């Protein structure tokens, strides 16, 4: 999500002004916090082999259910696997699922929404299709799709994107419908702008605020949904770790071995929180109507 919005922002801005945006972002407090949190998680994911010498799937039955201690900072699970190591490696998979789902559902959702708003005769068919998708609980739809498509990271991202895309599409459509009635859209048509230009330059940028906020939620939901799917056995197949399936595996021992669920849970919360703060900052800075001094 971050890369997408920064990229579109960059396209809109002359090179000179791109630095102004970066400078404003650097000064924005919640963006800074969010950025640091997300950056740390990404670094932790990438640097997993350096930060821990252990194999996330290696079982050591002698060390089952160790509470957090020097050798096992986050404790160990029922197979004696180090939770710290599994959370680090799990970050790779979970963040990738979050990012992929956010990008794919954001891209498709924004396209559907803005097309529905611009071409009114497509509105009813597209929105009824979205309604049909939304009639299923998102998680149920994802389960069905994931089961049909078969296991695999790519299929999981597709399933989750289809499940979360209709909300984004509806949101973008609603915002775009408001924007398209404003006079500057007529002014753009009067200036000779075609449909594509109006959608990309006039409608979509003015829907960016709600879209970015929505996508930060999608990111968090995607990580949580992956947990649920993993729990049901159609997510990331064990023994490969993802935050979701570590939590899922810890559920049976929630009282006796609370640390199994606690640490991946904290990781999920941190990722969601970081993304939300980052999204807030992006919205503030990319929307010139909200004045940020600087």
């Amino acid at each position, binding site marked *: 999500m971050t890369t997408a919005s920064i990229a579109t922002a960059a396209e809109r801005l002359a090179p000179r002004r791109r630095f102004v945006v970066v400078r404003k972002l650097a000064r924005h407090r919640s963006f800074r916090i969010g950025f640091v949190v997300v950056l740390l998680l990404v670094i932790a994911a990438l640097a997993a082999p350096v930060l821990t010498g252990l194999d996330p799937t290696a079982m050591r039955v002698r060390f089952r259910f160790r509470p957090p201690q020097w050798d096992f900072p986050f404790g160990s699970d029922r197979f004696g696997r180090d939770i710290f190591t599994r959370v680090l490696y799990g970050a790779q998979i979970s963040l990738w699922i979050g990012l992929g789902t956010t990008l794919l559902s954001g891209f498709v959702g924004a396209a559907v929404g803005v097309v529905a708003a611009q071409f009114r005769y497509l509105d009813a068919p597209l929105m009824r299709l979205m309604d049909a998708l939304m009639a299923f609980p998102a998680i149920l739809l994802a389960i069905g799709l994931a089961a049909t498509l078969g296991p695999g990271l790519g299929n999981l991202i597709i399933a989750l994107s289809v499940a979360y895309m209709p909300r984004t599409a509806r949101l973008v459509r609603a915002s775009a419908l408001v924007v398209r009635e404003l006079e500057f859209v007529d002014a753009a048509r009067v*200036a000779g702008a075609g449909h594509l230009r109006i959608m990309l*330059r006039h409608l979509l940028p003015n829907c960016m605020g709600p879209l970015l906020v929505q996508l930060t939620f999608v990111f968090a939901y995607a990580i949580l949904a992956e947990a649920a799917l993993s729990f049901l056995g159609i997510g990331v197949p064990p023994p490969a770790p993802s935050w979701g399936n570590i939590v899922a595996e810890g559920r049976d021992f929630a009282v006796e071995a609370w640390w199994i669920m606690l640490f991946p849970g904290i990781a999920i919360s941190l990722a969601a929180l970081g993304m939300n703060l980052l999204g807030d900052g992006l919205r503030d800075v990319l929307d010139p*109507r909200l004045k940020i001094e600087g």
Partner: protein
Amino acid sequence: MSAAPLLSVQDLTVRFRADSGWMTAIEEVGFDLMQGENLGIVGESGSGKSVTALSILRLHARTTTAIPKGRILYDGRDLLTMPERELRAVRGGEIAMIFQDPMSSLNPVLTVADQITETLRLHQNLDAAAARKRAIELLDLVRIADAPRRVDEYPHRLSGGMRQRVMIAIAIACRPKLLIADEPTTALDVTIQAQILELLRDLQAELGMSVILISHDLGVIAEFAQRVLVMYAGRIVEQASVRQLFRKPLHPYTDGLLAAVPRVDADVHRLPAIPGSIPDPNEMIAGCRFSPRCLEAIASCRAQAPALLDAGEGRRARCPPRIGSLTAP
């Protein structure tokens, strides 16, 4: 005038789809506009002024609008049947338009430079640097001080008057032959109104374009236009030169409008108003649509819809009794 008109609207009828069926917004509207001429269109809210203007550039939503009759000839080509691609070249390139509300007619997320150069790059093959240079020139032309700095501002940092100047800069960017100004000064305060009108007049002289000015303010029309159309309930009721219209209006509705203008040279406590209000477009009125409010209405007015009659000297009015008395003696 023997030359062909720049714009010729003929017999234009526009209908909108409403919940209760199709309603007629304007009916049999026709006028010619010469190169370099200023035409004013005046009327109350809902009289069809803006509908007429929007039809010229085909800005109505296609699914909810029907144009069963009429032609809009621009330079001999019919804008109503022109393919979309060709129309896009006309929009902004040859016919430009400015709107009433300067607060919402600029895109809030693009800078002034972005919005001016958008038009330039759509219609003229300018590279980014040349377009930017031209944008600054245009801001200078519409008398925005400190143009090189202002050009990088976002709209929310500009005042209403300044935004309207930016709109005008965008409109004239490609030197259009026709500028349609839909209530361009209504949302501005009076001193700014005068400045904007003066600016429009200067630019018009400089660029030699024709202007259609739409307003409900007779003062604005008197100051700006050479010829005036008075619209009532979707129809043209009178067409005359500004001088003729203000000296001796032909249609009773125009009388009423002129009487309702406050005067500075007379002590009037209460302005005379036209009794009643403009009819709902769905309301069926037999005969003249103004007859329920007209003090001079006679039986024939309520029986038969009057035609737009020629009254000599290029004037026309939709009031047979008055024109009859004009030509009879």
